[in-house]
């Protein structure tokens, strides 16, 4: 089964639920052998959040979190994947009440956590052992040796650096038993080899810890303006079915927490709906 991990837990929740409802109602329109593997995001306000910052912020309540559990875990039987990828966390941050409460409230589901900080990883493994741990792409391990080492560790999945997406030699050298734990980020907007990527994540982590939502950084894709090099590391649907899946790879991540609803919806239908039904599905979920 090809699994797509999607940014539908919080900010893209509505569009994702509509998509899931559509797929439930029209199962023959879904590409064979594909499904949503997990819905991810951080539940706001999350000081452990990394990867992205947002224009405005919300604060979820206990009721909100339990509703997410009801919808995704119980109704759709989909794991919730919490994005806890702030790499700047210190010991004192581990006691953050809301982040711990989310872990507590979701502990009895098939739920997962993405981490970038060894400190937080150890904390979660010790205190919330039911969670599956995923190694974050924000670690920026673009060196094949570093990635290889990461894959050999005890992670449920490893989201490899998108710069390695088309490195055939690297992919061929991954052991068969490790292939099911590899996750590919298949629609990264960041250009290949972006020199600012790690700094960008660093500053995003700082934002979360200081309750700010902007830092100055040179980014070629600010304000949604693309350069020619954006999406160069993307993996197309036909490549997944013709190359990656036959090689044994089954997990693919769609980014989109800060994309528009239309872009997120377009990605959903592109990868998971048969071509002849894509327009119909798109118009339904964007209605």
């Amino acid at each position: 089964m090809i699994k797509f991990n999607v940014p539908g837990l919080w900010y893209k929740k509505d569009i994702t639920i509509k998509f899931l409802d559509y797929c439930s109602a029209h199962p023959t329109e879904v590409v064979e052998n594909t499904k949503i593997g997990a819905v991810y995001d951080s539940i706001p306000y999350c000081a452990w959040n990394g990867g992205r910052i947002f224009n405005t912020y919300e604060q979820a309540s206990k009721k909100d979190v339990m509703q997410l559990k009801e919808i995704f875990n119980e109704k759709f039987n989909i794991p919730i994947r919490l994005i806890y990828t702030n790499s700047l966390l210190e010991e004192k941050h581990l006691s953050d009440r809301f982040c711990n409460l989310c872990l507590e409230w979701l502990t009895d589901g098939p739920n997962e956590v993405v981490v970038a900080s060894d400190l937080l990883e150890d904390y979660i493994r010790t205190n919330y052992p039911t969670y599956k741990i995923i190694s974050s792409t924000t670690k920026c391990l673009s060196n094949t040796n570093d990635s290889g080492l990461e894959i050999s560790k005890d992670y449920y999945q490893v989201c490899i650096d998108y710069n390695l997406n088309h490195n055939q030699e690297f992919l061929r050298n991954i052991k068969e038993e490790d292939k099911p734990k590899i996750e590919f980020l298949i629609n990264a907007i960041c250009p290949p080899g972006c020199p600012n990527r790690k700094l960008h994540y660093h500053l995003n982590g700082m934002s979360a810890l200081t309750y700010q939502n902007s830092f100055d950084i040179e980014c070629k894709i600010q304000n949604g303006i693309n350069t020619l090099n954006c999406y160069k590391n993307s993996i197309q649907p036909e490549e997944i079915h013709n190359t990656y899946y036959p090689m044994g790879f089954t997990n693919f991540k769609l980014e989109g927490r800060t994309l528009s609803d239309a872009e997120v919806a377009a990605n959903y239908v592109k990868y998971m709906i048969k071509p002849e039904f894509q327009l119909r599905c798109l118009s339904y979920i964007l209605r």
Partner: protein
Amino acid sequence: MNVRNYFVLPGLRSLDKLNIKLKQLKNAHGEYFYNDVYLTYVQGNFPNAIWNGDTMFFTKHQPLNAEMHDVLRSYQKYSLQPILNFANSEITGQDCDNIYCNVILQTALNINFNTTCIVNSKELYEYISTNYPNIMQIYLGKNNAIPADNTEPIPYFLNPNHNGDVDFLSRLKNKNNITITLNPLCFNCGKMQECLYKEHLAQLNYDPNSSKLCTCSYLYNHEYPLSKDKFNKSRDLIIGEYNKLGFSRFALEEYPVPEDNLEEYLFYFIKPEYYHEAKEFLLGGN
């Protein structure tokens, strides 16, 4: 006799626009106000702060640093000193590291404006003393008891259950440092402590749906009387009686219905002959 009565306004964040307008009105039309009125402090919190010791304050919208800065800066501009209510009685030592509450404190410090906190946890009191020595603190203690030797030159909030107890009030020392809440919502209610405990727990657990456990329908059905209807005496008489006992610091409690706070401000601050003009100004008509 020229008496000066110092008032603590409620709703640091929830009523910030009204509070600033009130100060603007005082600056522009001081003649509208009773001569004894000095607006000096504003009490409350930012939403979603787990240290919050008042009734639960939860909003879907999460303020960021810039917003907190703007609110506190506005108060600084109009000389209303903030009193942050950090008196949640259920805070543990680990909660002292709470990132958001520390950002609030740091923002207040950065503005370099006299800020006071009310705390109800020994751990938090010590934490703030160590990490934010420039922030003044009022330590309530578990039973909100006034320390007999209280000499802090900052407002200390009297338990409103004592409001009508003339004997008790007469015996208090350092009356200059004691603030009387003129319009408490919950008054002589035997369940007040229990309700507050539940509010504090709800705040800690991000659980606004659990906090409305008060069975007093008059509060949550908004059936409470406003001050103009509650007391059988004029505003001058109400405050005058406290002045005679030596008290000159007063606070107003925030009422659940925003418009009711405007009415309370009019009653306690504005001469009746100027109610109309003041109301128009405060509602944004000026």
